[in-house]
């Protein structure tokens, strides 16, 4: 009797513990640290467009008017991009931030993996009244605001590597984005082809996060700021 009671208690403990672990695992697997999805807008068959921005703070974009928990952290406007499989994505990034020198200038000042190996960059003048447009395969690595660097994870979708440097914004005028005020952005447009369904990671490769981790702390070490995913489905 005593034995069967002890056995029953042990069994119940194991089942309860296992259940609690399974529940915690399910909750963790279901949770996503990312923001709401930004869908690539279809234009013609096999083509779609995505437009995002990079800001010097978090006062515009997905963090809301107050900038969320860290209003002074640099951020991309969206960190959860979604595009169809086997589609040409034409992406425009409005770059509102200032810049500096890249860590690995020779590599990250180049445009990698885009259609034609180029990006089209429209740079405003200081007053923000006019733009100069050029199609380039490389930029000045000492004056870059951020990079958009997208890569596939082996075994998860088609191998892909796209990296585009976003030059620093030279404008000094004032434009309003939501409730925030910046200067006219540098507009960088490029296109790339998605492959098979999968989740691809992207992040900025300019050391813009601050703190002691090689300037890759703070905004660079938290979801929702300078990194995100591209879900291809």
């Amino acid at each position, binding site marked *: 009797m005593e034995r069967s009671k002890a056995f029953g208690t042990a069994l119940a403990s194991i089942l309860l513990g296992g259940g609690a672990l399974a529940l915690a695992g399910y909750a963790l697997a279901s949770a996503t640290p990312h923001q709401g999805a930004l869908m690539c807008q279809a234009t013609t068959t096999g083509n779609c467009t995505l437009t995002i921005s990079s800001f010097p703070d978090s006062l515009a974009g997905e963090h809301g008017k107050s900038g969320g928990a860290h209003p002074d952290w640099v951020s991309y406007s969206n960190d959860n991009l979604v595009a169809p499989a086997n589609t040409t994505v034409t992406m425009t990034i409005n770059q509102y931030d200032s810049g500096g020198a890249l860590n*690995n200038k020779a*590599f990250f000042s180049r445009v990698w993996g885009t259609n034609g190996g180029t990006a089209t960059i429209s740079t405003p003048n200081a007053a923000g009244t006019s733009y100069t447009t050029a199609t380039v395969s490389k930029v000045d690595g000492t004056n870059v605001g951020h990079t958009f660097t997208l890569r596939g*994870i*082996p075994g998860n979708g088609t191998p892909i*590597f796209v990296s585009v440097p976003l030059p620093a914004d030279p404008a000094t005028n004032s434009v309003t984005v939501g409730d925030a005020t910046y200067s006219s952005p540098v507009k960088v447009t490029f296109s790339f082809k998605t492959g098979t369904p999968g989740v691809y990671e992207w992040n900025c490769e300019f050391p813009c996060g601050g703190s002691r981790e*090689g300037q890759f702390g703070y905004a660079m070490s938290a979801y929702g700021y300078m990194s995100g995913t591209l879900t291809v489905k």
Partner: protein
Amino acid sequence: MAEMKNKENLKGMFATWVILTVVGVAIGIWGPARLMPRSMSDNMHLTILTMVVFTVAAAPVAAGVYAVTLHALRHWVHKGDNVPAPAAEQTRENATLTASWLIASTVLTVFLLIWGLGALAVDNGSAGRNPLVVDVTGQQWLWTFSYPGSNVQSPTLVLPEGRTVDFHITALDVTHGFWIANMGVQVDANVGTTTQIHTTPTALGQFDIRCTQFCGLNHAFMVTTGDVVTKAQFNSWLASQSQKA
């Protein structure tokens, strides 16, 4: 009567030791090549061989521990609340047994030490007369590869089969770990320091390159692919990348 039973028990323990040793040796011979990543270099061949030799050499020792444990659990367990009676016969101060154990342990340990130092010397030896130098740069959260003598840079690694590759590894921000499991190559990438390690690819095919030092938010995604190709394919790839640059 008790003495005879004790001897029978010891025979059983010896038989268990022999059986477990055979199982351990079999696992040692069968396991490493099948459970470890596919070997694609001379370093990985040596690593797998070292695992085989060490596992086989350790099998009798592990089997001995398990055999004594099982023997004790089976025959030296006292059931009941009363104090157990003293054992009928105990083996104490057996010089032959002690000397055998000490000599066997010493021989085994010295053998493993010599093998380990030899394997380390092979890994750390010269890269040969005409190695292909590849500069490896780790940074959050990407590996980049440059081929000195050309203007080629790449986010993926392409290597020719049969030619020794001398990796010159560094990091730009924090410490990373450069690991090609299929080639038995793993070394830290440190800021401000260039570390060299070499290997000779011996099999065609793809492999993954991972970071083994936790380096921040996207550490888990600091993975890229590599490819071992024929010498002709490598030269062709190098030429095409050189034109792009």
